[in-house]
């Protein structure tokens, strides 16, 4: 994709909130900060805003670069920019780092206003509902009454769904990609293994490792490696790595011998340097707890009764972590409520990660849908 369609150089912003946020857990955040970025311009009617929700390891840096020579642009750069599917000539796009995050938003690494010390392990467990409530506070702050759309993949898709439940009048379209109405037992199990890797790392110190100037890097690294396995399909791994050897010889040791191992180590190491373990724990927990049907005896259709938004739901054939079947459950609940919904099952070999790729058909779908939204502005 050409750089000329990029949003170009961007700057992160911080918004401070002094009104306490009541959390699902019953606790309260007395005050908090949200890191966010915006691309494009808010129009005069203030009706062209789109929130892009991030997944497990994402943040508010969705598109563009901070410096010209940044190695990588924002994590969903291929989606956003002038002339790209989410066209910044038409839309005002907002990326927000979720509460509990480690990129400028309040989380374990920020100061607890009460103690004037790092929150550390005391930072409360937050949920998807809490995230959405804090995002609503941000759009209040930006003077936006209602959103043209909320879009997200994976747990980002869950946030898009939650928006339509928590604020039915404030969101006109939800684009829910590679998501699910809740996690399966297998998915919770993967998250628990990842958490255990972190929690049992001797450098974890019950979540207060900052005080000891330590980081549970080994645990975070294993957690990320496990995650990566589940984001890819068997076929994608096979075609990318197969049984290729790193140095062409079987080495009869436990050092990196296969290309696959090398890739996982690289991804794990990189992530353990950049990311915070407490954030990883909290993000996975928010995923586990997401279940809008729980108050309705598991009946998602009843949960969706209050929804007013139009939906685009997208899944990927090779995604086994959030399979097409799970997306179809969302579609069924929408259909049961006679809501406006389209559903695409994109043929892709990349597994769960496919939602970040720029497959032409997939991007064609998003382009078409955003044009429809733009025409309603």
């Amino acid at each position, binding site marked *: 994709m050409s750089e000329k369609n990029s949003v170009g150089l961007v700057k992160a912003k911080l918004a401070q909130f002094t009104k306490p946020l009541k959390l699902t857990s019953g606790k309260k955040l007395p005050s908090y900060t949200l890191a966010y970025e915006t691309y494009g311009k808010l129009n005069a009617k203030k009706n062209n805003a789109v929130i892009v929700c991030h997944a497990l390891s994402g943040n508010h840096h969705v598109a563009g670069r901070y410096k010209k020579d940044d190695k990588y642009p924002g994590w969903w750069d291929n989606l956003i920019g002038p002339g790209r599917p989410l066209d910044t000539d038409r839309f005002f796009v907002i990326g927000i780092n979720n509460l509990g995050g480690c990129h400028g938003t309040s989380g374990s690494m920020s100061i607890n206003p009460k103690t004037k010390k790092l929150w550390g392990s005391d930072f409360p467990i937050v949920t998807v509902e809490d995230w959405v409530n804090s995002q609503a506070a941000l759009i209040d702050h930006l003077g936006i009454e209602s959103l043209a759309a909320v879009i997200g993949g994976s747990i980002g898709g869950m946030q898009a769904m939650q928006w339509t439940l928590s604020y039915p009048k404030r969101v006109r379209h939800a684009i829910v990609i590679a998501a699910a109405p809740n996690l399966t037992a297998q998915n919770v199990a993967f998250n628990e293994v990842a958490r255990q890797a972190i929690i049992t790392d001797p450098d974890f110190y019950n979540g207060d490792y900052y005080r000891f100037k330590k980081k549970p890097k080994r645990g975070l690294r294993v957690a990320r490696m496990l995650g990566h396995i589940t984001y890819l399909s068997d076929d994608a791994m096979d075609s990318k790595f197969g049984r290729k050897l790193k140095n062409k010889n079987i080495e009869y040791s436990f050092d990196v011998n296969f290309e696959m191992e090398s890739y996982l180590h690289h991804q794990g190491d990189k992530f353990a340097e950049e990311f915070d373990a407490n954030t990883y724990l909290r993000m996975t927990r928010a995923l586990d707890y997401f279940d809008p049907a729980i108050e309705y005896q598991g009946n998602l259709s009843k949960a969706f009764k209050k929804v007013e938004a139009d939906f685009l739901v997208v899944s990927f054939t090779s995604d086994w972590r959030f399979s097409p079947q799970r997306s*179809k459950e969302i*579609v*069924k609940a929408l*259909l*049961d409520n*006679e809501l*406006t*919904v*389209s*559903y*695409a*099952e994109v*043929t892709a070999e990349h597994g769960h990660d496919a939602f970040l790729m720029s497959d032409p*058909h997939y991007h*064609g*779908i998003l382009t*078409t*849908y955003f044009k*429809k939204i733009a025409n309603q502005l």
Partner: protein
Amino acid sequence: MSAQFRQDFSVIANWIPFGAKVLDLGCADGSLLKFLEGSLEVKGYGIEKNDAHWLNTLKQGLNVIQMDLESGLSGFESQSFDVVVLSQTLQAIHNIEKIVYEMCRVGKEVIVTFPNFGYWRHRIQLIQGQMPVSKALPYEWYNTPNIHLCTIKDFDEFCIKNKIGIKERLILTYGKPIHFMPNLMGELAMYRLVSK
């Protein structure tokens, strides 16, 4: 789009109440739904498996669900649609008994249209020793998606055997209704069905 296809549309539109909730199975590029939305303000949903067709339907601003009809309509509640339409798609479906059963389950009323294999032009081509190729059946035997061609008589018997009530039947040739020897003279068969 051929003139005959439009005739098909207008008959279907005559059978659908204003503002009805309609499910169009195998909606192709969404032309029928678009027509029904424009003329009857229906609440329409299409089902389409093919990527290109699916996207064209979305481009028309319609609701479209990507799925394979062969796997049934399990994502749809019983009697949740006023009308379920299967327009000129029947002949390309593997498990016809299952899909017709599913249509009758989901729809309060069902509309099925298909090209009549018993049409005299088709019979003549068979007598001449070749598989029929016509406007309604434009494919060669080796590239046709049509695997379950039937005649009007065949479909009538199918309905009796499967306890499906025929509420109305209209046979068209070049868009005009045929009353005399319809199984021989009719090109396109259109049925309004209800489960008994």
